[in-house]
């Protein structure tokens, strides 16, 4: 498995790294985003969506809706499990099993650690973001994926 840590000094850099990863994604891929509140997970997802042809001004946090579905070059499910603390409740609450059956979709999950040990059926790409506020971010991307500038 490949693993690479990239230093992102600005929010723009976080967005651009999201774009680079997004450009390498294909239907059936699952991306798990980890990092504390305010790390930039939604911003990173905006980058992924931008690379897949979506107008990112329309992308907002799914903490309220739990799952947002976007139709771009591919279907993208943007999931946020922050407020669901029970692992069984987490997958049920968003209908995750059904979403993962859609092989043409990219599934991006914030706070995937809420799922506990979960079988995605594929090896997910893991993105771990550390840092918050104005400080630079260290972003580690691991998984069977090769992206531009890697």
């Amino acid at each position, binding site marked *: 498995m490949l693993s690479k840590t990239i230093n992102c000094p600005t929010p723009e850099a976080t967005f651009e790294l999201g774009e680079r990863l997004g450009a390498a994604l294909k239907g059936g891929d699952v991306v798990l985003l980890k990092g504390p*509140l*305010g790390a930039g997970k*939604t911003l990173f997802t905006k980058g992924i969506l931008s690379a897949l042809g979506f107008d990112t001004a329309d992308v907002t946090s799914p*903490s*309220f*809706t*739990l799952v947002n579905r976007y139709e771009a070059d591919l279907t993208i499910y943007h999931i946020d499990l*922050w407020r669901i603390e029970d692992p069984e*409740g987490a997958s049920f609450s968003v209908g995750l099993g059904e979403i993962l059956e859609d092989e043409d979709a990219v599934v991006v999950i914030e706070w995937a650690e809420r799922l506990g040990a979960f079988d995605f059926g594929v090896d997910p790409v893991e993105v771990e973001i550390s840092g918050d506020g104005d400080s630079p971010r260290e972003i580690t991307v691991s998984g069977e994926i090769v992206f531009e500038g890697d």
Partner: protein
Amino acid sequence: MLVLGIESSCDETAAAVVEDGRRILSSVISSQIDIHRQFGGVVPEIASREHLLKIDPVVDEALEKAGVAIGDIDAVAVTNGPGLIGSLLVGVNYAKALAMGLGIPFIGVNHIEGHFFSVVFENPPIEYPAMALIVSGGHTNLFLAPEPGKYELLSRTRDDAAGEAFDKVAKMLGLGYPGGPVIERYAREGDPKAIRFPIAKISDGKPDFSFSGLKTAVVRYLRENGIEPVKEGEEPSNEIKDICASFQDTAVRTLLKNTRKLAKELRPKVLIVAGGVACNETLRTASEKLAESLGVTVYFPSKHLSTDNAAMIAAAGHFHLQRGERSATDLTADVNIRLQNTGEHVSAKDGRKVPYRI
């Protein structure tokens, strides 16, 4: 004209009978809040199942309270977006089937336009151009309505909705869900100037809202000062109350900063502040002050009309029905539906056009 309004976009199943678009004969709201509280927010899968169980009795109760028979209804208005897909579908299909069975017209209503119409029952008629700040758990939008039925989206959130920021901060502080009322309660006992949280600036210069930075600032403050969340059953410390007050103050100033700037530029006759967050007294007081300083009249819905309800949907539906509009039988739920049918507003300051979209 009697319109039956139906609303099921999120976690309230609601039905109302409204006469001539202005008089509420009944407004019944069945809230699922107690079911969702344990999950710290609405769970879509559970919400849609609850709507299925509740919609029929809620409609019956609305008719009974209005003292009308189902055959007296002239038309049905139903929320068809934005909202949660499973929840919306229950209302839309129920309303369609009911209207078709009765042989009466029906119309799909944009939930946000419903909030715009929530002020028609208790205020003088809306004068145009009107500006509307619609703030809730799921939405944070500022509109200009240059004339009846025309809406231009001036500003929206780039990340978290305002109500969502309240929910997130309440959860971080251990105060539970929903966050709005509990933060407001403790904020009353705290000092709004105790902590300086930042008001977000949007890097591309558009007058949009952002609440993610404020949330992060609260997280950071808690960590740097070693503040633990309130334990269940415990009274929050003064420190927590100060955080509530300072956060709320910053959230309200964030909402009104854009509103002030755009109202100065566009000179509306009326400012509407509606949606669940419009229950917040600090927002109401600050909006009144802002409106007064600008020489604008401000309209609020009363609290039971601020949160999701079907009376506002019936009123908005009545407006469109009066203009001869009808929905076709292929009406469906649209989670991403926008409220924007006019535009090309050029901000004098940044000179950039807000894109036209419907």
